[in-house]
């Protein structure tokens, strides 16, 4: 038993703050009148900001500094911090976008915010953990929170289906991950990544048994990444879940799973690169094609974006396949860009959908540009960025990833990815066509966007252009964040 050190506690301060706020919100929930429930949302936001402050404190000051905590179970390093900032950003945007959504759909409960915070805690642990068991715990914490969130619209049949489907398939997948971890433990006698990687440091040490362990762990993660052929659940869940939750789901757990993928597969177990390379190559190619081709036929905007998010996981996998400092920093840059544009798009969709989320077909967007030009323009920016047009974050994200891929001589995969992004233009533009070039339906949701939503949109749009036009600072950060993996 390792004695508890203050340094240990300090190094997981952001997670502690988030958990305290989550618990506090649960406790206060019965004492807050129904009309005042928004207060809990603001409190959650405060918690996120406080956690952000704590992360800044940790990453900027010499004490307690970077380093392992709790006997190497968790590590406070640049890599983890980068992802923690990302998760906090996503949580903040989602909370801003949910408060009025919940009010409108009469689902205003404190638990929602507590669950978002708990989900964020789990994701932060996934990014910061250096022990396989800890990673598993992080994954479970975030998963359980998101299972519940997916079914948050209790009266809605699709939302229930989403929750159950996500839960059943999700538990099935985590079992794979756990099984893989057990294999690693059996082989090396430890679940600590440092210890396990020391024993598997030579390519010759990757016996069939070890390779099976690796594949099992990949399958477990692939579910969260929703890469083909483990993407089956994604469209149903993203469509059924409340739109702000979908915003959260499509970015948070995915980025967290990518963090684990990078840390475990490219960092600790890089000696198995001969095997991982082909696993990653094949799933990148499959995921891009499946996501983009299926998205072409969708008429429901949420479902369309679900397939698009599968495709984006494919692009990111191209960067993971490329590996190296360029590949990893490209992936990390892309994930921030993707978070901004995808969360932004889903939040706007949530508010355009109207009470009960009835207006989510592409046809419902007809003529939006004449009735609400500013909203249509925002949505267009998000779609153009998702499609990867220059001056937006989406373009530079792809640019960095493809640069890494070509540097690693993945020319075929790069061309496939680029052609895929041409295909994606077609379905993103389908919505733009509806908004700008078709004659309008008169029925639209509320005339004005609530100001917290506006704030979230402003943040994401400014972020998209900032990352797309002045990438130097951010690229520096993401390069810095790759250091712990490449030591």
């Amino acid at each position, binding site marked *: 038993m390792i004695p508890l050190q203050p340094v240990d506690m300090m190094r997981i301060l952001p997670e502690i703050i988030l958990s305290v706020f989550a618990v506090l919100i649960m406790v206060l929930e019965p004492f807050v009148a129904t009309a005042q429930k928004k207060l809990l949302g603001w409190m959650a936001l405060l918690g996120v900001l406080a956690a952000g402050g704590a992360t800044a404190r940790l990453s900027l000051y010499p004490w307690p500094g970077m380093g392992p905590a709790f006997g190497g179970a968790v590590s406070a390093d640049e890599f983890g911090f980068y992802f923690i900032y990302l998760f906090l950003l996503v949580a903040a945007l989602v909370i801003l976008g949910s408060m009025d959504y919940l009010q409108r759909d009469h689902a205003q409960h404190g638990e929602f915010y507590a669950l978002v915070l708990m989900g964020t805690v789990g994701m932060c642990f996934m990014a910061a953990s250096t022990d396989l068991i800890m990673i598993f715990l992080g994954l479970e914490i975030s998963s359980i929170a998101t299972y519940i969130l997916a079914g948050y619209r209790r009266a809605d049949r699709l939302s229930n289906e989403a929750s159950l489907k996500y839960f059943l398939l999700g538990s099935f997948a985590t079992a794979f991950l756990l099984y893989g971890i057990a294999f690693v433990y059996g082989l090396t006698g430890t679940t600590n990544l440092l210890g396990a990687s020391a024993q598997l440091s030579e390519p010759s040490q990757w016996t069939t048994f070890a390779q099976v362990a690796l594949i099992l762990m990949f399958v477990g993660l692939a579910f969260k990444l929703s890469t083909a052929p483990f993407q089956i659940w994604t469209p149903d869940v993203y469509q059924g879940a409340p739109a702000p939750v979908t915003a959260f789901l499509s970015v948070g757990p995915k980025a967290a799973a990518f963090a684990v993928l990078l840390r475990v597969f490219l960092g600790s177990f890089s000696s198995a690169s001969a095997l991982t390379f082909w696993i990653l190559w094949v799933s990148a190619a499959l995921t891009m094609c499946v996501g983009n081709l299926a998205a072409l036929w969708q008429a429901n905007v949420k479902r369309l974006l679900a397939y698009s998010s599968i495709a984006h996981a494919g692009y990111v996998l191209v960067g993971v396949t490329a590996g190296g400092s360029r590949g990893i920093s490209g992936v990390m840059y892309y994930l921030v860009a993707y978070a901004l544009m995808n969360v932004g798009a889903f939040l706007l969709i949530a508010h355009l959908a109207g009470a009960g989320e009835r207006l989510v077909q592409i046809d419902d967007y007809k003529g939006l540009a004449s009735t609400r030009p500013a909203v249509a323009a925002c949505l267009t920016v998000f779609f153009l960025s998702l499609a990867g*047009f220059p001056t937006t974050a989406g373009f530079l994200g792809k640019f960095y990833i493809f*640069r890494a891929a070509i540097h690693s001589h993945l020319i075929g995969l790069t061309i496939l990815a680029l052609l895929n992004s041409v295909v994606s233009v077609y379905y993103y533009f389908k919505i733009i066509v509806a908004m700008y070039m078709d004659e309008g339906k008169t029925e639209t949701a509320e005339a004005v966007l609530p100001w917290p939503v506006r704030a979230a949109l402003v943040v994401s749009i400014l972020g998209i252009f900032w990352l797309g036009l002045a990438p130097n600072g951010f690229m520096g950060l993401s390069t810095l964040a790759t250091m712990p993996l490449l030591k």
Partner: protein
Amino acid sequence: MSWYSAHILTIVTFLPLLGAVVIVFLGRERTSSIRWVALLFSLLTFLITVWLYSRFDPQRGGMQFEEMRPWMGLPPVNYHLGVDGLSALMILLTGFLTPLSVLVSWKSITLRTKEFFIFLLALETGMMGVFASLDLVLFFVFWEVMLIPMYFLIGIWGHERRVYAAMKFVLFTMVGSALMLTGIIYLYNITGTFDLPRVLEHLVTSSALSPQAERWLFLAFFIAFAIKVPIFPFHTWLPDAHVEAPTAGSVILAGVLLKMGTYGMLRFCLPLFPDASREFAPVICVLAIVGIIYGALVAMVQPDLKKLVAYSSVAHLGFCVLGIFVFRPEAMEGAIYQMFSHGVSTGALFTLVGMLYERRHTRLISEFGGLATSVPVYSTFFLIVALSSLGLPLLNGFVGEFLIIVGSYYRHAAYAAFAAAGVVLAAVYLLWMYQRVFYGEITNEKNRILPDCDLREKLILTIMVVVIMAMGVYPQPFLRRMDRGVTSIMLRLERHSLLMTDRAPVGRVGGGR
């Protein structure tokens, strides 16, 4: 003044965008102030491009009005602008056609005027940026960004099948640019820079590029440009886009956007990959000739005026590509001259067809006949423009086509023969069309009461016709400024062709006129 001349290209590029931003803040219903702001900014831009072109020093080689500052750190991408005789001419063309497009749209765009002019000005910024960029990534950024305003121009203000045509235009271009982006990044991996002059220097001084790699890179760039031009098998997007686009969209599309393809070939394909260019040149020349003949034949049988003009563009651009890939200085100058003059004449033809459409809401040749008696002024303008398009001496079309045919004769007599046949066919389809539309009896009563050109239309057409005549009579100022640029491309090609033996003797550069 020095600050301005040091940043002249930035000003030219972003002034239209500033105009677009101003329009964003104008109220939706203030359509007339929106129009005037658009006209003001595009005119101002045009005046600056004229100043730029007149200050361009024909004696100096290399790039002029250069601007360079770092943009992205890793990988290093610079904001590097600069022009030579070729890009300066293209910038002048863009500057010239945009205010005319604003005037052309003055009355015909009544729906969502605000957005229309925002997109038009944003498009101008994109086009200027494409021609001014000397950094591969910067070039690519402008190349792609420009698609979006053009997409909206066709998609919102176009005709019946506008959504289909706009989508086709975007997808075709993007497939090409996907390949080009791969090529750009691959080139960066070899040379370690995106800066065009430095990439060139690197490729000249070292033999880093294997013939195999050079071939693939050439194709990656060339296909992107060939789609844009468009060269024969890639041309199917063009008639759709042209026919469905609003008049201003067609003018810009034919006038400037197609030139981006030929410009890209001259700026990137030939200097960067001279060996591969030589290797593929015979195939490309044949495709260009197929384009000339095919475009002319298809144009001949079009029942729709706008489609006729669109296919004539395929033929004319075939001339440009032929002029580029016969590797003769006079043909290359002819191709560049033809790029400019096609922009003016075809722009004028689309404007004229647009004016007719505004009056009758049809573009079918069979609906017309005998217009010469009911709209004499319009008919005269149309005749001059048609003659310039078919290459009548003393009008602008002749200079370019003549130089191209002369140059291609040196390469291969058959090239010249087929190209000359293309000129004859152009005369056939244009004059036959003119005869059916303007001569004979008035067969349709509606044509009897058509109003002739009003002051605005006369203004637009007069400006265009004056330029057409001036360029036909006195091409020297333009040719003089492209000499050095063409020479440097030719030198680059020759340095790599010393090993080749089947080369025709190269004549005196820029001479013989």
